[in-house]
């Protein structure tokens, strides 16, 4: 198909899931599982449309489409633009295909719910995925805000899905408060930019702010980044994240953690790197680096101290988002490519881990690590899936964490940021310890008493395990293929904001090719992995024997669970960011 023909298909990947969402409550009247089946088919359709664009877009071409035929005149755009660049396409494709897998898993895990529940669930699930795909494809700032709000509204519904569970309601209230604060920040930021430059299109904004941004532009940048950092769960905006994940059903936690949280990072990458560009945004890179390092460390430390399995995984998500943002903030090709790679990896292995955690809850009804144990004998499949996820996060080859973490570490060494690299390695050691401890407590230690009745695993869950696990393995075994065909073009798009901008305005623009290579058998990297894993295992073994150390207790006490306190952390974060960037 021609480039123009393909570009005119751009609204479809978003429109199909929205259509599915609208049909879901109606389809539930015919058959209660019909909405989920429609959802799986719709998302596969979205993925197929995106896949049809993939060869051209990942080859460096940028496809753009203006809604309603309002094409730009003389470099000024009035209409809402959708543009597929490699970075957005990779994320959209991951969202559509992993979303389909999660719905398959839902089909068997929550399949006994009534038609009303399943209709509503499928509706919100697809709406959230449509919002994620829209975020990845849009090239208009206000449209980005609208997708953020669509994602937010559907996430409120999914967090509080089990209305009869008090903690789900509590979590929903915290998510609502913090996300609403974030939406104000984004809204005011977008308005400021529009009031200053009279433009919302990313291409025009790039032209206006990438050279010499005014103070007002920097305030807008701070507000936008803080707003999306709330969605990404970066410290100090993270108060909602562990609660939302603890309360939601398994596949919803997987969707939140693997895909929705990354929405924030995708938007931050677009705004800070692509629109503001390296020349206009030096202080922002420092700020992102700091937020990333703090998130990586705080998330990992809190994960180590958790007793609730899903809460532990949620804190680890904060840590992983920190690692991602550090990779982006290096603003060098290998770091940004590593971050894109890590984005996909995280979506894969975190979904796998949350589905495994959900499967344990489904089988035994237990959520606390202290009540589990010996599950490797009773549930070898789940144990294998969970262990694969842990090995991937630990960055052990041949699974997929190894190349992406290796690239981020290499980028930090290249750009001479040894202190940050050291902090990343420390966070990695604590992450290994936290997840190793969880795997040991849940699966590999002995349990004296037998479990009461255990529910057998269902086909859909097993299918999801195998699909995600196999993709994790494939993404780890063929790093250079992924780098050449996905991560390096994505990095090129993020680092060449001017090319992206001209691609949004006119057809036939090609991104310059970046060559990022990963040496699989580099001795230094392999030794680093061995050292971090060894240190992590020792730390986990030590942590199992001692009482909770005082600094960790203090850090946990800071997370009071009060919505006022979390809002105060977020407000302080916004004020600090504005002060750093505008002064």
């Amino acid at each position: 198909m021609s480039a123009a023909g393909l570009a005119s298909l751009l609204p479809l990947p978003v429109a199909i899931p929205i259509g599915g969402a609208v049909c879901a409550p109606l389809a539930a009247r015919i058959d209660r599982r019909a909405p989920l089946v429609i959802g799986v088919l719709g998302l596969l359709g979205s993925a197929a449309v995106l896949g049809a664009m993939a060869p051209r877009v990942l080859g460096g071409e940028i496809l753009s489409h203006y809604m309603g035929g309002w094409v730009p005149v003389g470099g000024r755009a009035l209409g809402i633009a959708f543009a597929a660049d490699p970075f957005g396409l990779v994320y959209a494709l991951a969202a559509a295909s992993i979303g389909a897998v999660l719905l398959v898993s839902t089909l068997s895990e929550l399949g006994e719910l009534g038609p009303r529940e399943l209709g509503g669930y499928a509706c919100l699930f697809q709406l959230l995925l449509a919002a994620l795909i829209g975020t990845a494809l849009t090239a208009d700032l206000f449209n980005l805000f609208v997708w953020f709000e669509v994602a937010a509204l559907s996430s409120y519904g999914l967090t509080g899905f089990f209305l009869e569970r008090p903690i789900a309601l509590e979590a929903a209230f915290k998510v609502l408060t913090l996300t609403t604060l974030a939406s104000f920040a984004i809204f005011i930021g977008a308005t400021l930019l529009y009031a200053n430059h009279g433009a919302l299109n990313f291409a025009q904004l790039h032209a206006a702010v990438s050279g010499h941004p005014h103070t007002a532009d920097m305030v807008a940048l701070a507000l936008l980044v803080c707003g999306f950092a709330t969605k990404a769960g970066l410290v100090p905006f993270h108060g909602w994240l562990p609660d939302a994940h603890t309360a939601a059903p398994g596949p919803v936690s997987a969707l939140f953690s693997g895909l929705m949280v990354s929405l924030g990072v995708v938007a931050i990458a677009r705004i800070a790197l692509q629109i503001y560009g390296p020349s206009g945004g030096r202080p922002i890179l420092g700020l992102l680096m700091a937020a990333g390092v703090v998130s990586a460390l705080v998330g990992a430390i809190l994960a180590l101290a958790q007793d609730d399995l899903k809460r532990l995984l949620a804190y680890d998500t904060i840590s992983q988002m920190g690692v991602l943002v550090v990779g982006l903030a290096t603003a060098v090709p290998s770091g940004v490519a590593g971050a894109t790679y890590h984005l996909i990896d995280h979506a894969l292995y975190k979904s796998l881990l949350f589905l495994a955690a959900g499967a344990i809850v489904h089988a035994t009804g237990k959520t606390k690590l202290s009540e589990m144990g010996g599950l490797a004998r009773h549930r070898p499949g789940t144990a294998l899936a969970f262990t694969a996820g842990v090995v991937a996060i630990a960055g052990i080859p041949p699974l997929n964490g190894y190349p992406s973490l290796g690239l981020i570490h290499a980028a930090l060494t290249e750009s001479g940021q040894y202190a940050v690299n050291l902090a990343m390695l420390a966070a990695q050691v604590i992450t290994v310890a936290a997840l190793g401890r969880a795997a040991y407590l849940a699966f590999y230690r002995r349990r004296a008493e037998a479990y009461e009745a255990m529910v057998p695993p269902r086909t859909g869950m097993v299918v999801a395990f195998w699909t995600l696990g196999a993709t994790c393995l494939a993404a780890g075994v063929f790093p250079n293929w992924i780098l050449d065909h996905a991560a390096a073009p994505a990095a090129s798009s993020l680092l060449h904001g001017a090319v992206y901008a001209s691609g949004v305005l006119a057809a036939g623009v090609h991104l310059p090719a970046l060559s990022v290579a990963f040496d699989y058998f580099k001795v230094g990297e392999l030794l680093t992995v061995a050292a971090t894993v060894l240190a992590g295992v020792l730390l986990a073994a030590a942590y199992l024997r001692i009482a909770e150390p005082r600094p960790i207790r203090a850090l946990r006490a800071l997370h009071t669970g009060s919505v006022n306190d979390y809002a105060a952390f977020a407000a302080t974060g916004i004020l600090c960011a504005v002060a750093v960037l505008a002064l």
Partner: protein
Amino acid sequence: MILANYLAAACVFSIGLYVVLSRRNLIKIVMGLSLMESSTYLLLVSLAYRRGSTAPVLTSPPGTTSMSALARGNVADPVLQNFCLTAIVIGVAVTGVFLSVAVRIAQHYRTLDAGEVRALRG
């Protein structure tokens, strides 16, 4: 006098934020967020203002305004007013969700005190 609008917006926003940070009653938190929301509407409508402009309706201009004056663009900024409408719609939806969650919390926890609704912490 558009400056007064900006100051009013800033004041209302700050009052709303103060309520969210300091009041523990969940309903009051929702009210604080609604105040912040309203202040953004005021900010937006004020940003759309231009001296001596008419409403951004581009057919049959009112009074003495000629069509050519309209075409030269002495109208209030329609895009910002459009934002404002979108924000109002979103705001109503979010407040609805907020209040329904607050009602269910009141039913389950038998309290609306944010200091007591914190089973999830640490």
